């Protein structure tokens, strides 16, 4: 039996500042995230990856507070977190099953073979599970990356640009999986594709130059946009409105 939850939010950050090299890439972010799928949006260089790395506990915050799962101790916390880095480095000579099992071992799991089988089935790679990673297509590699992240049934799942390299059909399936995962975990998906967020996320966090400029539902973000703002969908126009991007076709 699991102990009852004693914290209000899976992730709570107060005035969080994180450095990437010498630059303060996340500069005073205050946010709280519970269960559900949270889309982390923002232009390139907004600090999305740095924030996700801080949540994955591989970057130490420069200042501010970060409390995850009620302030669990680092090693216990990491057993309950799944992480897909932006650059998913893998061992080409491993089969999918071997690789996911290796990560499960790194996560100090018990009953590894069954958990690996479950994770591989969830991402739809069961028929390729015993093929070497170097024989897989880009989309399949990405799915193997998601499999290693969910192998420990994480309570916090951090996915950095998970849809890069997926074809449209795979992205649809991936959104279904996200919705499924979001029912009993806190899923943070960093992306720069607004349509991914629109389809699968319950909540949007918008970063710009290291600052949090918006947190709320997709509907509220869409409500910010008007016809004068750049974008092809209400959500894109809301995104442009909050970031203050003027509608000047042709400019970057």
């Amino acid at each position, binding site marked *: 039996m699991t102990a009852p939850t004693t914290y209000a939010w899976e992730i709570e950050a107060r005035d969080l500042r994180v450095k990437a090299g010498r630059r303060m890439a996340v500069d005073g972010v205050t946010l709280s995230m519970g269960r559900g799928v949270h889309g982390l949006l923002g232009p390139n260089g907004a600090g999305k990856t740095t924030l996700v790395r801080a949540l994955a506990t591989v970057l*130490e915050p420069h200042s501010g507070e970060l409390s995850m799962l009620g302030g669990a101790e680092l090693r216990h916390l990491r057993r309950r977190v799944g992480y897909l*880095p932006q*650059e998913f480095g*893998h061992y080409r000579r491993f089969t999918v*099953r071997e690789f996911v099992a290796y990560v499960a071992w*790194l*996560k100090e799991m018990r009953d590894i073979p069954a958990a690996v089988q479950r994770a591989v089935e969830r991402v739809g790679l069961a028929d390729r599970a015993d093929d070497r990673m170097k024989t897989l297509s880009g989309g399949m590699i990405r799915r193997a990356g998601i499999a290693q992240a969910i192998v420990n049934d994480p309570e916090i799942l951090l996915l950095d640009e998970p849809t890069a390299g997926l074809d449209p059909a795979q992205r649809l399936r991936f959104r279904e999986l996200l919705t499924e995962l979001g029912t009993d975990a806190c899923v943070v998906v960093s992306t720069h594709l607004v349509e991914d967020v629109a389809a699968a996320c319950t909540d949007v966090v918008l970063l710009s130059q290291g600052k949090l400029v918006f947190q709320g539902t997709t509907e509220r973000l869409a409500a910010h946009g008007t016809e004068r703002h750049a974008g092809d969908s209400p959500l894109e126009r809301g995104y442009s409105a909050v970031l203050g991007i003027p509608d000047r076709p042709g400019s970057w």
Partner: protein
Amino acid sequence: MTTDHPADHLLHRYSQGDPGIPADELWAVESHLETCAPCRARLAPEPIAEAVWASLSPLLDRTPQMPRARAWRRVHGWVSPAAGPWLAMILLVIAAAVVLDRAGFAVGDRVSLVLLVAPVLPVLGVAASWGRSLDPAWELTAATPRAGLPLVFRRTAAVLAVVVPGLAVASLLTGAGFGRWLLPCLAFTVGTLALGTLVGVTRAAVVLIAAWALVIVAPTIAFSRTSVVLGAAAAPVWVALLGAGLVVLALRRMAFTRLEGNR
């Protein structure tokens, strides 16, 4: 708490999923079952389990069976998956050094090539075990609960388990004394890790390879004899460096749980 157990016919109806049980009775049975193991045992031999099994067993033949993990994959509890080719290369370099030594190729006056390459070999292995440039899954590994000094030590031990016996055989074949290469070899290994906690393992490896070229290789070529730092008189210095490295490692051990450790 009362000790009234539900009657047999009620339990039977419950296990059949009878919708006719009044809500209050259903609730009472359910909450009783949660706390009463003997009553759960009364449920168990019901045909439910057999029914579930009967519907599962035809599926089992069509489900792909999990192959057993290949035994050699288990070594990755010790050897970093990225280090394999580098360990093979280290053995090749040792073999080449032995062959050249035996063939009488020498940089000037009886300089042993085995002795010359001994300190730098483990540095490469360590860099391959934890460095960002050689291990593709560095970020993934650093975010797992197992990341940290114990895993780094395991991987380093695996490197030394290849390098040290290799060099031992080489020194037997060429007659270079054990003490002369073992201490520099260990000091460079620990040094890579210790410096790695401060600037990252990859950069530490680069710095130490440069130091090796400057302090050991350059004098050997310039004066055509084995550098004094490989002589017996230098042993206390190597021991001191080894000790200092271990102290730094102990103090900075948390660096290996963060990305800073494998820059």
